Every structure is written in structure tokens, then in C-alpha cells.
């Protein structure tokens, strides 16, 4: 689809939506001049857009509707329900055409005759006389349907009787609305009402089905966001559904652009030249830096989702856990419209689930205990989300027994996580913090709900891996609150982990061409260095442990394992390692403070077990 057609569809859908909402407002508030102007302008711009694209039938229909509204503006025509119905019918027809255009890049063959008929209806002089006569015949007192109305209804039937595909929901919604308008126009109010109810139900069903990214991709060329979808989004801005894969591609390219920018930035900073090149490059470089940062922000903002989906899943899960443990619990959610990066939303599911399990299993007292303490029998867990600057804050608060500090202190001492002397001097928050230490668990018996082998240490590691923090507050016999603070967006880098010299290192995945294993005899000594031949090419072999001044684990392995890497300047080398780990998506943090000057290191990240993974800068290693 060319960019003009794409822009045409985006604008036209926005205008149809705008006109629809304006017309519905006008029906209740016919004297609202700005809204009338806005509706008029929407049809006018639709006409202009159709003219540019040479969709003559659409231009014809929008022209007729625009004239009708122009007459209303001029005071020559009263804004009756019939006028609104005519305009709405035009919009429904345009909506159908837009679907068609999206799939076929052209209007259907019958577009001209339909446009002609609708335009004639609109121009019919009978309109100017206020309301149609009260209905005289028909099931709910509607007037007899005109032949073209019957034809229109039949068309809708034909439209929805095709086998279901990706465009079905759109067609069903649009057909339903056309029928509703026809019936309303001829006074069949009850029938129109029935359709309205079905449409509302239909919308609810659509709303609760999983969103696009979990559904299989629709066949190419099918309109996927039909008119019914347009109505789903109550927020005024027109949205465009984009496959997640495409967004990820843009995110990935942006990431690589930023890597390139960092390299350029480095060169400009260290430039030492007599030609004043540095002076010339600096402003350009500053602009480049600013633009890439803005680009990254804008790109990541396309990947945000409301937390609603995650929160909704917890309602069921909490209910099930509470039933199983026979503790009446009610989950109250708040701020589910808060948005966060898709990566964050998805990665938060496990940690929140774990905290909820803990709350139900350990936090909330058995019913009898609650009654004795004068608490309501049904416990309440609040799951709240809010946006706080660049962060998303999620809190899980229960009204249970609170955490027993003495028990934590004892356990920590018993597990030798802390000495009795240190524990005695610890302030309360620090004692609570002991819960997050690896290997800590106060549960007397592992239940199958919270004892799944992950403790609060795993929760903290998961959150910190995303660049966030988790804090726990607890008041005895009042309850416990766990707060997660996470960045609104994250940029993930894929790394390959390698073992060398008894340690684990990461290498940016995009720098790795392949991994190879070959017998030690194939290593060619060249002076003091070594090389290997790979598909006829000789490339240097660098022992990673030696390059990093670590002790090689095995002096002379029989099989050489190496990752073939390419530096930014195109230079290729093989890094000899002890073994390969796996792929990992991480948030790369640049080295700070004293470590920031070390060459050969691109950054670091936290591993799931709390260890620091150092990610190597391939270019520096090869130098």
C-alpha cells in the first residue's frame, strides 16, 4: 500500500469517527454551533481526501452530506433526527468502503450506484419538513420499508453471511449499524433497539477477547481493524493497530542506531585534529545525540500497554488461591488503566503473582484468627498501579497479620545470613530487607502455593533486572505492602553469554557471527599469536581469558570453542572460550564511576541470581 493510501485511510477513519461523535452530540444538542461546524468540516475534509485519491463515489456521497449540513448551517434546514440518520448512514457506508479500500485498494464496483442512491435520498426535498410522520404500520409501528431500504438490508445480510475471517468483526459491526439506522429511519424503533443491544454486547465480547498480539496474524490483505473496533476505543485519538513484530523491529534498529551514535560520540570527543574538525562536528554531534534520545523515547512509547490485562488475570488467580487455602479474600484493583512498556507489563506478572501468593498464604490469617482480632472475615488485598514521573509504581497491600520481625531476625541468624550482634543492632527496615536475601524463607512448611522454589530474592532480582526497585513495608497485625517501582520503558539488548576463566561474560548478540568448535590441531600459530581458518579465511583467534588477564581454566583443550565476532569496523576475530551459555535479553547499564574508563566493557547487567554480568565491547577486545 502506498503512503498516500495509508494516509488516506488514517485520516478518513479519524474523520468518520469525529463526524459520528459530533452527530450523536448534535442529536441531543442541535443548537451546538461548534459541533455542527466540526461535523461539517469532517465531511468536507472527507470529500477532499476522496477527491485527492480519485474515489469519486465517496466524493459524491460526502459532497451530498456536506451540502445537507451546509443547509443546516445556513438555517435552511432544521436539524432533525432524519438529517442525523442520513449523515450516519453516509458514515456507515464510508466506513464499509474504507474497509474495502484497505483490502482491495479500490472501491467496490457497486460504489457508484450506492453513492447515487444515498445522495439522492439525502437531496430529497421531503427532508426539510421536520420529523417524519409518526409510524403507522409494521411490527412496532414503523412505516413500510422503501424498496431501496430493503435492498440495503439485504446487502448487509449478504455482507455478514461470508465465512468468518479476520475482517468479520468489522463487517458485523458495520452491518449492524447500517441496519440499526435504516430501521430507526423508518420508525422501527424497537427493532433498532434490539440491534443496538446486540451491538453493545458484541463490543463487550470483542473487548474481553485477547488483544491482537496474542491472536494469529490475519491473512495478508484483510482489513483487520474494522469499524466496530473504531467504536471500541472510547479515547478520542485514532489508533492504528500494528503487529508487535514490526514495533520490535523498529526498537531493534533504534537500539543499533544508538550503539552507532555512542561510537560516533566517542570519536568526536576524542578527536585530536588541527583542522578544527572537532569544532565543526560538535554541534552536529550534540543534535544527533538529542535526536536519537528523542527517537528512542518515541519508539518505546509505541510499545506501551495498560496494566489492565495483567490485573484482570489476577482476579481469577486470587479467587482460586483463596478457595484452595480456604481463606476468604477479595482482590481490589485500582489504576488498571496505568500504562507501561509491554516488556515491563509482561515481566511483572510473575513477581506480582508471587507477592499475591505470599500475601494469601502467609500474610492473611486464617478466618478464626481474623475474627479473634476483630477483623472482617474477608481479607482485602489491594493491587494498585500509578504513574509517577518516569516510573510506574505498583503496590500490593494486604490487611493480614503483618510480618513478624522477631521471626525474621531468628531465621536470618539461623541461616547465617547475619550475625546475632549485627541483627540486634539492625533498624526495622533493614530487618524486613533480610527477606530479600537469597535462601531466606520464613514459611514453616512449604505449601504448594507459595513454595515453588522462588523466594522474595527472585522477586527482587526480576525487578532489578528490569531496572526497578522493590520495597516492603509491614505493620504487625495491620498488614504488609510490597511496592514495585519500575521504569516506564526499557531498552533490552540481546547478549550471548560465554564462559571464560571461570567467569561468565556477555557479548552483544548482534556482534556474534557464529559459534564454532574445532580440533586443537587446526589452530595455526602465527608468531606469538594464533589463528584459525574458517571456510578458507584466516581469522585471528583470541583467548578470551588471556585477553582479560584471567587464568585459563584448561591449559590445552582438545577441542577449541570459539565465538566468531565482528567489531564495528568490520574486523572479524574468534574469541576462544571455555563454553557457551545462552541468549539473554538484558538492560545494559553503562559502567559508572571508577569503572567507566575501562576499555573492553560495554556495560553490565544483573543476572537472575543477582550476579553481575559484564558485557564485553568487541571492538576494544580486537584492538
Amino acid at each position, binding site marked *: 500500500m502506498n503512503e498516500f493510501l495509508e494516509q488516506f485511510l488514517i*485520516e478518513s477513519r479519524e474523520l468518520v469517527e469525529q463526524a459520528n461523535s459530533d452527530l450523536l452530540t448534535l442529536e441531543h444538542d442541535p443548537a451546538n454551533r461548534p459541533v455542527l461546524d466540526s461535523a461539517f468540516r469532517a465531511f468536507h475534509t472527507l470529500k477532499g481526501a476522496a477527491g485527492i485519491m480519485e474515489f469519486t463515489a465517496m466524493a459524491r456521497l460526502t459532497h451530498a452530506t456536506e451540502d445537507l449540513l451546509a443547509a443546516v448551517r445556513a438555517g435552511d434546514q432544521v436539524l432533525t433526527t432524519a438529517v442525523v440518520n442520513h449523515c450516519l448512514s453516509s458514515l456507515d457506508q464510508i466506513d464499509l468502503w474504507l474497509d474495502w479500500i484497505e483490502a482491495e485498494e479500490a472501491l467496490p464496483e457497486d460504489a457508484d450506484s450506492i453513492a447515487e442512491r444515498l445522495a439522492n435520498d439525502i437531496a430529497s426535498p421531503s427532508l426539510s419538513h421536520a420529523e417524519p410522520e409518526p409510524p403507522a404500520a409494521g411490527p412496532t409501528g414503523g412505516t413500510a420499508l422503501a424498496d431501496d431500504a430493503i435492498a440495503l438490508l439485504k446487502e448487509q445480510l449478504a455482507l455478514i453471511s461470508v465465512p468468518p475471517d479476520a475482517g468479520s468483526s468489522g463487517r458485523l459491526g458495520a452491518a449492524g449499524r447500517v441496519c440499526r439506522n435504516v430501521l430507526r429511519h423508518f420508525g422501527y424503533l424497537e427493532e433498532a433497539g434490539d440491534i443496538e443491544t446486540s451491538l453493545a454486547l458484541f463490543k463487550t465480547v470483542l473487548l474481553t477477547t485477547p488483544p491482537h498480539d496474542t491472536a494469529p496474524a490475519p491473512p495478508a490483505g484483510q482489513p483487520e481493524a474494522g469499524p466496530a473496533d473504531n467504536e471500541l476505543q472510547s479515547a478520542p485519538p485514532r489508533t492504528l493497530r500494528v503487529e508487535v513484530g514490526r514495533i520490535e523491529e523498529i526498537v531493534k534498529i533504534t537500539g543499533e542506531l544508538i550503539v552507532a551514535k555512542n561510537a560516533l560520540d566517542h570519536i568526536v570527543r576524542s578527536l585530536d585534529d588541527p583542522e578544527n574538525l572537532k569544532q565543526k562536528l560538535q554541534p552536529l554531534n550534540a543534535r544527533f545525540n538529542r535526536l536519537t534520545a528523542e527517537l528512542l523515547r518515541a519508539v518505546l512509547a509505541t510499545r506501551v500497554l495498560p496494566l489492565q490485562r495483567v490485573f484482570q488475570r489476577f482476579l481469577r488467580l486470587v479467587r482460586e488461591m483463596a478457595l484452595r487455602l480456604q481463606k476468604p479474600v477479595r482482590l481490589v484493583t485500582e489504576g488498571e488503566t496505568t500504562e507501561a512498556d509491554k516488556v515491563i507489563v509482561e515481566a511483572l506478572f510473575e513477581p506480582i503473582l508471587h507477592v499475591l501468593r505470599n500475601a494469601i498464604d502467609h500474610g492473611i490469617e486464617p478466618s478464626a484468627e481474623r475474627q479473634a482480632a476483630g477483623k472482617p472475615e474477608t481479607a482485602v488485598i489491594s493491587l494498585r498501579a500509578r504513574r509517577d514521573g518516569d516510573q510506574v509504581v505498583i503496590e500490593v497491600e494486604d490487611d493480614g497479620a503483618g510480618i513478624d520481625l522477631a521471626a525474621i531476625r531468628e531465621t536470618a541468624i539461623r541461616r547465617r545470613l547475619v550475625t546475632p550482634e549485627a541483627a540486634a543492632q539492625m533498624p526495622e527496615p533493614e530487618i524486613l530487607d533480610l527477606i530479600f536475601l537469597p535462601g531466606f524463607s520464613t514459611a514453616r512448611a512449604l505449601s504448594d502455593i507459595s513454595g515453588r522454589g522462588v523466594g522474595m530474592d527472585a522477586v527482587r532480582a526480576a525487578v532489578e533486572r528490569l531496572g526497578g526497585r522493590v520495597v516492603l513495608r509491614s505493620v504487625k497485625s495491620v498488614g504488609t505492602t510490597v511496592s514495585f517501582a519500575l521504569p516506564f520503558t526499557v531498552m533490552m539488548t540481546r547478549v550471548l553469554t560465554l564462559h571464560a576463566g571461570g567467569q561468565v561474560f556477555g557479548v552483544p548478540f548482534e556482534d556474534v557471527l557464529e559459534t564454532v568448535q574445532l580440533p586443537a590441531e587446526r589452530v595455526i600459530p602465527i608468531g606469538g599469536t594464533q589463528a584459525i581458518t574458517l571456510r578458507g579465511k584466516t581469522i585471528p583467534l583470541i583467548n578470551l581469558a588471556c585477553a582479560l588477564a584471567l587464568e585459563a581454566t584448561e591449559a590445552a583443550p582438545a577441542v577449541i570453542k570459539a565465538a566468531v565476532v565482528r567489531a564495528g569496523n568490520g574486523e572479524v576475530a574468534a574469541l576462544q572460550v571455555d563454553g557457551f551459555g545462552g541468549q539473554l535479553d538484558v538492560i545494559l547499564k553503562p559502567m559508572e564511576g571508577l569503572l567507566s574508563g575501562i576499555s573492553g566493557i560495554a556495560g553490565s547487567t544483573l543476572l537472575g541470581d543477582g550476579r553481575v554480568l559484564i558485557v564485553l565491547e568487541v571492538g576494544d577486545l580486537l584492538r
Partner: protein
Amino acid sequence: MSYKILIVDDSKLARMSVAKLLTTLKPDWTRLEAANADDALKALADSQPDVVLLDFNMPGRDGLDIADELRRRHPGMPVAVISANIQVEIVNRASDAGAAFLPKPLTEQALAAFLRDAEQRLAAA
């Protein structure tokens, strides 16, 4: 001679189509775009275009309003008001504001004629 031209239209599609015509007619001209009256006046102050194309129908201040203001601020600047409504009233008001009237959708021919005239006026000034 290469000039700077400002295209004012709230529809991006319309701006795209004018821009496409301009790449054929005046490939060496610099194109500026604005989506509303405020942006248009800002672009006028910041970038000082030589020629302005205005869509008549825009939310807020319409094309004729801007044309009136342009006549006051920059008398002699070639300005065209583009509208799909070829109504005598609009055509007359455009001519009162010293602006040319061009029908929408804009044809290559109509735009070429206006630009020819504009170039002559700019060269004479």
C-alpha cells in the same frame, strides 16, 4: 530562482498531494508545511517563505483569515487559497485578500499557473 513555499492544510494527505505536485513542478524549491493557523504564522516568522498555499477549511482560523493577515503583514506576497467549495463568496473574499483561488483537489495545471504568476511577481519585486 529557487523559493521557499509554505503549505498550510490540516489534512496531511492534502499536504502530501500538494508536495508531490511541487516535486514535479519546482523540484528545487524548499517546502515548508503547517497544519493550522498558529503553526503557519510561526513558520512565517521563523522561516520567511516567499509563497504561501492555504487550505480554506481548517479548524480554528480558516485560510481566508490567514490570507487577510498575510496581506497586512506581507503585502505583495503571492498567496493562494485552496478550497473544494467553489463558492462565489469564497472566491470573492480570496480576491479581496489579494489571494489567488485554486480549486481542490489541486491539479498540476492550476498550481503551475499560480506558481508561474508568483515567480514573475517575486522577480519583479
